[in-house]
């Protein structure tokens, strides 16, 4: 492993196929631009939500979801304009935030420990998180901007 331990995004437990299928079902129902696909039917570890348009100038985007049996997760937005961001929940060694939930901001989902933020999705129920992620994606898409990607950092 080349990454230092402080930058690990590893989840506890094992990949949870039931959770990933639930996430896909919710996201596809809510989002006409989305099509979900598993990396492997027999050994599903990652759900890729393909979006036929991206935020702003991006022509396409993808949200990769990993979800564990203990309700840890990585939710990674990436697009053809090269923007990355991630809403995560798992134990970490960043100086902040104290919670397991945290946010790696755009444009490159920075892992610089001092730039990791509190996540506005401080929640581990898949039914709620999938709906919250869809709302955040829709806000970014309609505003053509990432400024509300982590609503936690933008108090009214």
């Amino acid at each position: 492993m080349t990454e230092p331990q402080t930058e690990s995004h590893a989840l506890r437990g094992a990949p949870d196929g039931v959770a990933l299928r639930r996430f896909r079902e919710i996201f596809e129902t809510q989002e006409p631009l989305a099509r979900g696909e598993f990396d492997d039917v027999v050994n599903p570890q990652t759900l890729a939500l393909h979006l036929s348009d991206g935020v702003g100038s991006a022509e396409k985007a993808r949200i990769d979801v990993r979800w564990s049996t203990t309700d840890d997760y990585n939710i990674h937005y990436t697009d053809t304009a090269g923007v990355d961001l991630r809403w995560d929940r798992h134990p970490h060694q960043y100086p902040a935030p104290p919670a397991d939930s945290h946010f790696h901001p755009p444009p490159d989902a920075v892992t610089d420990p001092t730039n990791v933020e509190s996540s506005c999705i401080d929640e581990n129920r898949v039914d709620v998180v999938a709906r919250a992620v869809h709302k955040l994606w829709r806000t970014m898409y309609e505003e053509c901007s990432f400024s509300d990607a982590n609503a936690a950092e933008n108090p009214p």
Partner: protein
Amino acid sequence: MADEVLRDAVSDWVEETTPRERVHSVIERTYDAVSADEIAERAETTAKTARKHLEELSREGVVTKTASPDRKATLYKRSPTSLVIEEAARINDSVSKPELIERIAELEAEIETYREQTGADSPDDAALQDESVDKELLFEWRGTARNLRFAKAALAISQAENAVEQPNTG
């Protein structure tokens, strides 16, 4: 605004689903037994409603009931049998039998690679013997091991189904 996103997500969930659907969604991934109160809280319903649906789901075989250690409360979790059968049925619906046999061999080879890489028999052993072991690798290994067991159950069920359907052959 942070609270708003989550609050809206919760209220959408409650509007779009029935209490029974929410209790089912929560319990289907509850692997460690918990009380009806805890299920109710996660499913955004009352303890009384949660208990009613948990009892129904228990009669249907989806839920397993146990007594709490002090025997004062009933605890509920997803029935492991029902999860294995559901996963096996899903696998048999999506891949052919020859393909499944091939995939089982591939997953077994993958696990052998994890063992060679770490010098450990299982993800737990690997974590115990080396604290700096790649945690991503352990996560993938645990997933492959779990899904391999579902795949083997799928194959066993499909073979047993063949035996039932063609009792005079094989």
